[in-house]
């Protein structure tokens, strides 16, 4: 029994340490993404507001920024990469796939012909 507790305790302490590091890591991600998201929003506003960026480019540009924002939102803030998010992920991927086929299909068949 004594042996048992001796071997068990360091493992336990190790785990706690790992968790602490993980939380610290996550906080770092949160901070970085928070600042990044504010920056991206400012850039988007600037792209539209400024006359130096042509509006046709600006529209595409802010759409790209929006996609990046979505990834920040889903992965950093909604923890999509964590365990137990398989079904939401599956649901979203299949939903996006079907929406993409639909939009591409209609757009391709109606506005090109």
């Amino acid at each position: 029994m004594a042996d048992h507790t001796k071997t068990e305790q360091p493992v336990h302490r190790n785990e706690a340490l790992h968790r602490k590091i993980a939380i610290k890591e996550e906080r770092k991600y949160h901070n970085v993404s928070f600042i990044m998201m504010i920056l991206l929003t400012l850039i988007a506003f600037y792209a539209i507001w400024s006359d130096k960026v042509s509006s046709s480019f600006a529209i595409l540009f802010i759409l790209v920024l929006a996609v990046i924002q979505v990834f920040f939102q889903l992965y950093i803030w909604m923890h999509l990469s964590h365990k137990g998010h398989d079904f939401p992920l599956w649901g979203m991927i299949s939903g996006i796939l079907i929406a993409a086929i639909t939009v591409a299909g209609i757009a391709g068949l109606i506005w090109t012909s």
Partner: protein
Amino acid sequence: MSTLASHSKKSGLMDWLTTVDHKKIGILYLVAGGLFFIIGGIEAMFMRIQLFKPENDFVSADMFNQLLTMHGTTMIFFAAMPLIFAFMNAVVPLQIGARDVAFPFVNALGFWLFFFGGVMLNASWLLGGAPDAGWTGYAPLSTTSLGSGVDFYVLGLQISGAGTLIGGINFLVTIINMRAPGMSFMRMPLFTWTSFVTSGLILFAFPPLTIGLFMLMFERVFDANFFNPDNGGNILIWEHIFWIFGHPEVYILILPSFGAISEVVSTFSKKRLFGYSAMVFATVLIGFLGFMVWVHHMFTAGLGPIANSIFAVATMAIAVPTGVKIFNWLFTMWGGKIVFSTAMLWAVGFIPTFVMGGVTGVMLAIPSADYQFHDSYFVVAHFHYVIVGGVVLGLFAGLYYWYPRMFNRVLNETLGKIHFWTFFIGFHLTFFPQHFLGLMGMPRRVFTYLSGQDLDDLNLISTVGALLMAVGTIVLFINVIISTSKKYAPSEDPWNGRTLEWAIPFPTPEYNFAQTPLVRGLDPFWLEKMAGNKKMTPAEPVGDIHMPNGSILPLFMSIGLFVAAFGAIYKSILVGVIGLAITFLCMFLRSVIDDHGYHIHKKEVEEDMKEGRS
């Protein structure tokens, strides 16, 4: 059910209006779906009477347009859909070892929204004429249709569509989260699997319908120009949106029928389902492919040879997973100890009938040939072979199979067999000649035809077949009425079942499982029987069981939308506001009133178990 009353029991009608129990909601769906099935059937009979001889004047051309529109819309949205939800409600929670669905309140709301949507649509008969633009509601026919018929179509479908979407989400969450210990995904019975995939299809297919109907409503009410070419719109947009919904919709209907057939074939062959994992894979693949074939409804719209070819190939690809299923059912029966009960008869009748519908489906998927078939009776024959020969035959198999579980009565087998033979022969008599009528050039949706074109005899045969189908349906209703007699109370486990829903005594206790069962493999109840056990091994000790309280709010929420829809049709802001106010008030009440449900105490459960009631 219990002598110790831990909560106030509601009586009769109030109990049904406020219920959130999945078993009772299943019965409500079945009764309401059966009612609309009769209404749709009567409409079909009127059409067949009109067409039994050339130049008949039983109904006018305008009335015929209303009949065909209402027959299609009613049968798809208000008969087939609720009947599928009836079995999903009655069976899925039991098959996965759950005490209820994930959101019982929302389940009730889904039912009432569907029901009032159906009442809304059918109210149009009494209020100046039913919709007459076909169940597909193609623009500009639907946007320019006079009267308010199409408005009833739009709003009725909008309300019931919300209910269906709610139901689909509910079953997705239920199946993902509420499976009993040991019930992994690859141990789920095939009916649960098909219900799962169907719910996923509902989740993705109904939003396009909602948007399409909104656009149509805006065209009609506010003169929007989505589908108006004069102002830069495009009528094809409606066709695309409708079929992006419409094609997955037919798979939404057929998949649960496939599931029911799988359960019935396996049970009455006394064998486990052949190729279970292939069946699951085929189900998922059909669901996935169902979203990329919608253009095959529009081959003649002029989208060009490239678009037509791509969608033709995608359509033919669906024949592969469907063929896998057909062969697996045949192999399940091969070498099995087959019992030809009524449910099994329906399942066996289903297989060749559905294959015939599938074969004409592949024929229609060839664009060059489709230019010949399009909008002819060949198409009518095809989709009746897959929807009646597929969905309805599967539903009848499910009805005879699960009736004891739902109503604590068995249906009479002799009457059941009469029902099967009259309906089955009547069905083929009605629709087989229609293939040839189509090939001979009879267009669909016409109210009459001239004599001397060789169309007379086949149309007469078709009408006689329809009468035979009506006789079969009447026999079913006689059977249902007779079954209320105590004589038909089922013995324990009437079919020697394999899945969890048969591991519970009759009638099903309110809480389904006194103890959540432990699942040790596919066909869990059969495994326990083979191991010499009479009951499932429990996965938990007996304890208090938490139950949700009933609520009248879902009913009133739906009534609110029903009233508001009348405001929208008759352009009365007051009525619209009153209706929406009722709905929002109910939503507000639901949000602020805490309802924690109640507990059935351990003592009552133990007492039930001692007396063999659970």
